[in-house]
Structures are given as C-alpha cells and as structure tokens.
C-alpha cells in the first residue's frame, strides 16, 4: 500500500466512515455505522453521498417490513484509497512520536517556550503527490502542529 494522502477522505467525518468500512466487515448497516462513528443521521447521509459520488462507497438500499435499511461497503478503489490514507496517517503518527521521543532524550519537554517552534511543511514528492515534512529544530524538539491537506469542516 502506497502511503498517499487523499483529500476526499481527509475530513474527519469521512475518515471515520471510510475507516470503519475498511475495518474488515463486508457490509455495514446505516445505524451501526452512525453509532460507531458517533455522528448524526443527516451527516452520515450527506457524507456517504459524497463518497458514493466519488466511487469510494457502494450503497444498497432495502427494507425490513416498513423500516428502510441502508447498507454501505467500500468499493475496491475506495479500499485502496483508504488504506493509502491510513498508511500515510500512521507514518505521520510515527514521525510525531519519534519527534517526541527525540525531544525527551534531548532533555527538552514539548512546549518549552525558550525553544523556537518548528513548523512542518508540505511539499511534493516526485511522482507521489503531496507529502508532509515534519521539520525539527532546537535540539530534537517535537513538532507542535500537524498540517492537514484540507481542513474543510463537514459536520
């Protein structure tokens, strides 16, 4: 899996939906997904439509008696994109924890005011698209902020 950020999955709500659908289940029902993600019906409806339009999620609608039932699952393309994005996030997490570890080893606690703040930068990796570069200065100090590709609020 190539660790690549996906701007469509990046907003937290869509990341939750896709991450849950990629957890290992084949199909997940609307209520189960809503409860696990901790979001409202309307947010799930809206975001699932965005993901469906992008071809990341497949939706199957049915009914049990008079109650409508909607089921979701990731498409093959959606699964690939989610796995790439999650791998990218995991790398990011690893970078941050390594930075924190380095800072501890160097004897500086994160948040020290006498050290200049290090700023992560976004850049382009040749052939790999956008990438996050976490820079560290001031004796291996941990970075304070993580930059998002897109911070569009969705709920």
């Amino acid at each position, binding site marked *: 899996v190539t660790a690549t950020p996906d701007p469509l999955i990046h907003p937290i709500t869509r990341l939750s939906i896709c*991450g*849950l659908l*990629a957890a290992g289940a084949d199909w997940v029902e609307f209520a189960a997904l809503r409860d*696990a993600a901790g979001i409202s019906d309307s947010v799930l409806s809206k975001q699932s439509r965005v993901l469906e339009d992008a071809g990341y999620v497949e939706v199957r609608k049915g009914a049990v008696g008079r109650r409508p039932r909607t089921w979701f699952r990731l498409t093959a393309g959606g699964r690939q994109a989610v*796995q790439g994005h999650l791998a990218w996030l995991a790398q990011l997490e690893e970078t941050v924890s390594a930075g924190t570890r380095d800072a501890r080893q160097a004897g500086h606690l994160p948040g020290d005011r006498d050290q200049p703040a290090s700023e992560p930068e976004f850049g382009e990796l040749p052939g790999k698209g956008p990438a996050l570069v976490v820079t560290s200065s001031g004796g291996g100090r941990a970075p304070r902020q993580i930059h998002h590709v897109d911070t569009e609020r969705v709920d």
Partner: protein
Amino acid sequence: MMHDVPGDPAALEQLRVQRSRLADRMRWPWWYQSGLAIFWALAFACPFLTHGVRIWPILIGAVAVACLLQWGLVRATGIKMATPTLLYPASGRPARIAMIVGALAALEAEFLLIRHGLTVTAIVVATLAVVAEMACQQVQLRGIRQGLRGGGGAA
C-alpha cells in the same frame, strides 16, 4: 487549501475508538447461541439415526436453520462479514480449522462407538462435541472482533 490544524494522529486514535465501538456490536444474541447449539446437536445426532430414516431432510433442515440464523445475526448486529473460508479471515482461523477437524473426529468416533454397541459413550461424545464446537465458535467470534478492532490490516 492547506491550513494549520492540529490533530492528525488524534484522528487515527479516534478511529481506533470508533472501530472498537463497531467491534463491540459484534455480539451474539441468546437466540443465535441457542440456534447454533441446536444446529450442532442435529449434526452430531446424525450417526444415531437408524437405517430406515432419511438423512437428507435433516441435513437440509440444519442448513436452512444455519442460513436463517446468519440472516438474523446480520440484521441484529448491522454488520455483514464476508463468507468465511478456511483461510479467510485470518482472525479466528485456528478456531475454524479446529471446528472442522473436531466435527469430523467426533462423527467418526460416534459411528465407531455405535457400531460396537457403546451407545451411551457415543451420546457422551456427541454432547462433548457440541460443547467443543460452541467453544470454538466463541473463539472465532473473539477473533472476528479483534480483527474489526485492528482494522483488518488497514492501519
């Protein structure tokens, strides 16, 4: 658009919590466990049938009960797992193999004991086999839940 927003690793942590919530939904209702016990009891009762009784109606009935139970479980939990094979999913694979080997061994032992006139011992073997199969299914369920928590390999 790229803004400074902290919290990418936090998003990954939140996803872990959400997946844990989804995995917690994967619990068997009482009727499913009772149905499973009946299914296995029917299966291990087959060697006791005398030659005059047809085995096919019982087998078809057992398969119908299993399908009905599975259908009910999917609707109750809101999670549909892919059809398991001997190798997929990786979580709970040892329990699945143990179930198949255990069932074959118990059936063979029952046939052997009945042929030698040891009916009471055969009944004990059948009862123990039902208990063992139920225990294996519980282990398998725990594996499925663990897989859902871990994200099925996706970060």
